[in-house]
């Protein structure tokens, strides 16, 4: 690897370890390496990249869903939701932790973004699960892992970007994401179930009174109504041809406000608190997105992608070897770059290698989405980690530890898909 790339990576680690804010640190690394190694007007490139990074219309779903979650968090629906769900999962080992996973999978159906999924579901579930005595690490870990499903389960912003750039049918990509998405959900749930059997302490030991379970289940139904209405109106507007996927996020905000008004939990102070809460999250994530966009641009200028491609090309690996090597490259890239940047930066370079090795573009799309999902939860730069750090106020290292088992599960899952590619490709072939 050429010198500029090595300097960039080392200075990134140094500046992050120094405790500087992540967004500013990423910008600093880009500024530093370009000032040293290239003769271009850096401040112009910086301003332009910041502008480009946050001016994508597809990003709009993120602030809207964050606002929705900030509002919901202040409603009285949440308590009712968990009381209603509890009898349904009482017999499952792992209890309400499964609601984290299932809620993420459900929310992934309405949201194309992984950060939006994690922050919306997390905003709603974390304090509840904490209050009920669930293991904090697993609460955070399940959110980190399952939150990434936002990209894999359609609709998905990164799939659309991949589809357009690789000239692949977005519809087929969406279809291809369904089976892996469900399988991964099942993997996460199995992990929680097995773990809670092995270590019973992680789940609160409540009254295991199952005699009136059906009655409790039915009694809780009305509390689910607001969420049925909410999810239904988002899905309905999206699949009923009323709104585009991003527009549906605005429907979510409006429906939430109406529901809260009906429930009489809407007040000026609630609106104000929700506004400031939204601003804090939107600002934190937006600055990181802007910074990551600049860093990706800087890395492109330093010639890193070409160097990596030339290196891989020179190795003449067999197809599975190529995929394993790409996994390693993406894990490294994913540790310090943001998902969308990884896709935009690498497709033009990696795509020809993969197609040449005989892989299906749809399969590679799903592979790439999963690698981007891994990037969301790998330190030091991972959007889901930041979202959860913001939600819980815990140090990044503890969020990273909480997410790690789920990182491993996903890694194994990607390898499984590399060995059995038909898991991905059979459904879109039916189209």
């Amino acid at each position, binding site marked *: 690897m050429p010198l500029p790339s090595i300097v960039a990576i080392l200075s990134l680690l140094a500046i992050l370890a120094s405790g*500087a804010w992540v967004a500013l640190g990423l910008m600093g690394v880009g500024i530093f390496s370009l000032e040293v190694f290239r003769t271009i007007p850096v401040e112009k490139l910086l301003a332009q990249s910041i502008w480009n990074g946050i001016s994508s219309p597809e990003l709009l779903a993120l602030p809207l869903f964050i606002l929705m979650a900030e509002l919901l968090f202040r409603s009285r629906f949440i308590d009712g939701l968990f009381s209603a769900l509890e009898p349904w999962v009482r017999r499952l080992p792992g209890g309400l932790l499964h609601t984290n996973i299932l809620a993420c999978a459900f929310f992934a159906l309405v949201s194309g973004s992984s950060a939006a999924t994690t922050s919306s579901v997390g905003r709603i579930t974390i304090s509840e699960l904490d209050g009920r005595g669930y293991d904090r690490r697993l609460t955070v870990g399940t959110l980190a892992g399952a939150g990434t499903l936002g990209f894999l389960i359609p609709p998905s912003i990164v799939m659309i970007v991949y589809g357009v750039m690789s000239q692949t049918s977005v519809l087929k990509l969406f279809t291809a994401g369904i089976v892996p998405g469900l399988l991964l959900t099942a993997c996460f749930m199995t992990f929680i179930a097995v773990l809670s059997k092995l270590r019973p302490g992680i789940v609160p030991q409540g009254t295991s009174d199952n005699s009136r379970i059906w009655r409790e289940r039915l009694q809780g139904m009305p509390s689910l109504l607001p969420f049925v209405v909410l999810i239904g109106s988002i899905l309905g507007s999206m699949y009923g041809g009323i709104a585009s996927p991003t527009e549906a996020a605005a429907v979510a905000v409006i429906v939430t406000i109406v529901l809260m008004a009906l429930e009489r939990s809407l007040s000026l102070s609630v609106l104000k608190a929700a506004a400031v809460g939204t601003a804090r999250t939107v600002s934190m994530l937006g600055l990181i997105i802007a910074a990551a966009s600049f860093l990706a641009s800087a890395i492109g200028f330093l010639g890193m992608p070409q160097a990596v491609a030339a290196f891989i090309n020179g190795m003449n690996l067999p197809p599975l070897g190529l995929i394993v090597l790409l996994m390693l490259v993406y894990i490294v890239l994913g540790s310090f770059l943001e998902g969308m940047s990884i896709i935009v930066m690498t497709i033009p370079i990696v795509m020809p290698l993969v197609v040449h090795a005989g892989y299906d573009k749809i399969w590679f799309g799903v592979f790439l989405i999963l690698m981007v999902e891994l990037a969301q939860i790998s330190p030091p730069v991972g959007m889901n980690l930041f979202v959860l750090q913001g939600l819980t106020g815990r140090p990044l290292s503890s969020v990273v530890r909480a997410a790690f088992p789920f990182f491993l599960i996903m890694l194994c899952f990607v390898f499984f898909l590399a060995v059995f590619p038909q898991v991905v490709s059979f459904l879109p072939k039916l189209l």
Partner: protein
Amino acid sequence: MIFLSLVDRLSRALAFLSGAVIFGIALLVASEIFLRNIVGVSLSFVWEVSVYLHMCAIFLGAAWTLRTGGHIRVTLLRAVMPRLFEWFATLIGLVISAYVTNALTLLAWGYYATGRTSGSTTDVPLVYPAAFIAFGSLLLTVQIALRLVHLAMGRPVELDSVREEGANAPIMD
């Protein structure tokens, strides 16, 4: 002293504005959906204006987010030498933030001087969003600088967002 609290109050007001702007985006997009489906009219400016509003919201909220500890950082080494760590991190942040503010101000100035517009259906003069962005970035830089003042005076560098707003409660630990 008065300056410190003035900056805090301004930061807080802009964070509130930032959130209100996101509300505004929701209302804009919702009106577009309504008009398109019921009246058969599409508001051609909605996407573009929403994007600019979002960009402004990100930067308008930046200073208050910093003041209430909402920006992410890696604090792995803080335990070793807490005070030195804070000074060092804040100084690095200040340098970068100042560089960024300068770059964004030059961008806004360039847009103003050339009169450049988005060149799309709406033809928004780009100086408007760019000016808000540059101002938000400037206020962020000022907050970081004041953090050094708080450090020197031995006062807490971050306000508690829960007490301030009931905003993002740090729920654990």
